[in-house]
């Protein structure tokens, strides 16, 4: 268990990282931190993808290529997300997510 590395290890690592990211995303007030935590979650997914790429389909590179796309999307996401945060901040002078409850209506 401790000495040999199996796919299970990576899965658990990934799950733990995902859980930390999720916890942060739900409980932090600052919107930018939430974005950061979402990045953590995406990275957790990437670990999983790459790990299974190695253990299941090493020649086909499916996992790795998928991970590349995830990184791409994540980069785009954080770019747009930060831009939105900036705009909101400009109007509301706040990045506290608890101040934003417009979804009520």
């Amino acid at each position, binding site marked *: 268990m401790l000495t040999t590395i199996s796919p299970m290890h990576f899965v658990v690592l990934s799950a733990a990282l995902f859980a930390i990211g999720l916890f942060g*995303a739900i*409980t932090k007030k600052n919107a930018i931190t*939430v974005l950061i935590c979402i990045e953590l979650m995406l990275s957790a997914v990437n670990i999983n993808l790459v790990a299974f790429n190695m253990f299941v389909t090493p020649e086909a590179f499916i996992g790795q290529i998928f991970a590349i796309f995830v990184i791409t999307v994540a980069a785009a996401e954080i770019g747009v997300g930060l831009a939105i945060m900036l705009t909101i901040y400009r109007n509301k002078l706040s990045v506290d997510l*608890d101040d*934003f*409850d417009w*979804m*009520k209506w």
Partner: protein
Amino acid sequence: MVEFAMNHTWLVPLLPALSFLIIIFFTRPWPRLSSTVSIAFMLSSFAVATLAAYGVFTDAQFKHEPLVYAIRWFGMEGLNIDVGVLLGPSSAMMIFMVTLVASLIQIYSTGYMKGDPGYSVFFSYLSLFAASMLGLIISSNLLQLFVFWELVGLCSYLLIGFYTHKNSAREAAKKAFITTRIGDFGMLLGMLAIQIIFGTLNLYELGQIMPNFEDYTTAGMMTLIAVLLFIGPIGKSGQFPLHVWLPDAMEGPTPVSALIHAATMVVAGVYLVGRTMFLFVEVESAMYLIAVVGAFTAFFAATIAVTQREIKRILAYSTVSQLGYMMLALGVGSLTASFFHLWTHAFFKALMFLGAGSVLHALHHKADVWDMGGLIKKMPITGWTFVIGGLAIAGIPPFAGFWSKDEILLATFNEGHYLLFTLGAVTAFLTAFYIWRMIFLTFFGEEKPDNHPHESPLSMTIPLIVLAVMATVGGLIGTPMNPHWQEWIFFGESHHIVPNIPIMLVSIALAAAGIGLAYVLYIKDRNKANVKDLAIRFKPVYTLLYNKYYMDEMYLWFNHKVVDGSARMTHLFDIYVVDGIVNGLGAVTKGTGGILRYTQNGKIQSYALVFFLAVLVITILLAFNDTTSMALVLGGVSK
């Protein structure tokens, strides 16, 4: 020529219909042109009708077999309706009479309606009315007849309400339409039953089938059909208790009253019963019902007429009464007598209405007979023709009314309905009295100083003269000495009339007595003191009669309290119960939503939390339930 007219009898209603269209769409801005078009078409229709009638009455084969031709109107499996022409002696007589009277009335109207803003429209309505009425007469199919029946109703609605700016005209028109509509309801039911049971509505076919009706249905059903069908004529021909619309219909221009009350619309009911006689004769009780309704209506309306003051209202009740006579004749099985009276009545009643119109025209629509008097000096033609009409309706020989009324009384007597006969005889007395009361008050006696009457123009007096001639000689074709009428127009077998001299004498005596009483009360007694005394002494009776037995008030009460009341109840039920349930459901939904909305705080992190909670729950449910669902969750990991 004659052949052509008989095979194209549909031209008779079509020509006035065309004139209606022409006036409405083209000539409305030019009143003179409109009336000319209308009269020209009416006269050509009259010509066709005369030729057709000539053709019928010169060929003995039509005595028993009418000429029928029809085309399919619409149809489907189980319901086929034809439209066509049924030309027999009765319909030939009717189209001749209606086209003649309608032509005269149209000519009269050129004078009466002169200067009215709705002149053209008036003529278009008259044309449409004539078209509908003529269509009704020649219909070969009950549904076709019903179509024209309703169109006649529509036209009478339009004509009664012709003075659209008068509220009273509006109410009267509405009343006429709705009251006759109640009758139509019964008639429609009867027709439906006939269609369903016998599978056809063609009058001729029904006439063939009806003697063997037991192959189709029971006697009880036949009685029901007959009674239902009779409700239509009760409404249309102003029989008790649906007569109330008829006196109110006087709100229309006087030529309309003449057209509707004398020649056409009101006799449509009588005509219908005559047409479907084959059905009624199969049911003894229905015939008796008709006779009783007819006799009662005749008597009932005559008593009201005795106390009325407006000239046209008196004439209206007299129409109701005379229609009762016609029904009575039908009820005792004498189509001959009924149609004979219809024929003579058309002339003398049209004459009297037009005469009354002439009087109103001269007095600027002052209608109370007590405000008139001595008019015969200023208006000789109107006056003397009116007197002829009065003699005719009172039943003084040799004027037309005598022969037909005598025929009815005789038929009633011969059938053994002595009670009904008595009613009829008393009515004859009352008729003579109230008509002559009116004549004496209007045309004789002292002149009233504030009246400045003048004789009406030629266009109005010529129709009066023609009608007066007809009212004089029109009955001579059916006297006991000269029974042409009886040879042609009959149901079943033609009656060989045996003149009953005592009855004839009784009838003459009653008429003379009526006239005499009127003379004593209204001419001899210059101050009318006796009359006033009578009115005071029998005040309850007088008030009851003067208020027409409060029939109108009863209907009004029923309409306002019962019908409107239940309508209001329905409305409230709709708003508070039906809609209440709907809105209640809405409120429940809204309330639930109001509670649940607190879960929607609009904060995205809460949503994410709930989302992942759901993921968790689903995962647990799937993963730890059984092996297959676990495989589903683990996907490719599990083999």
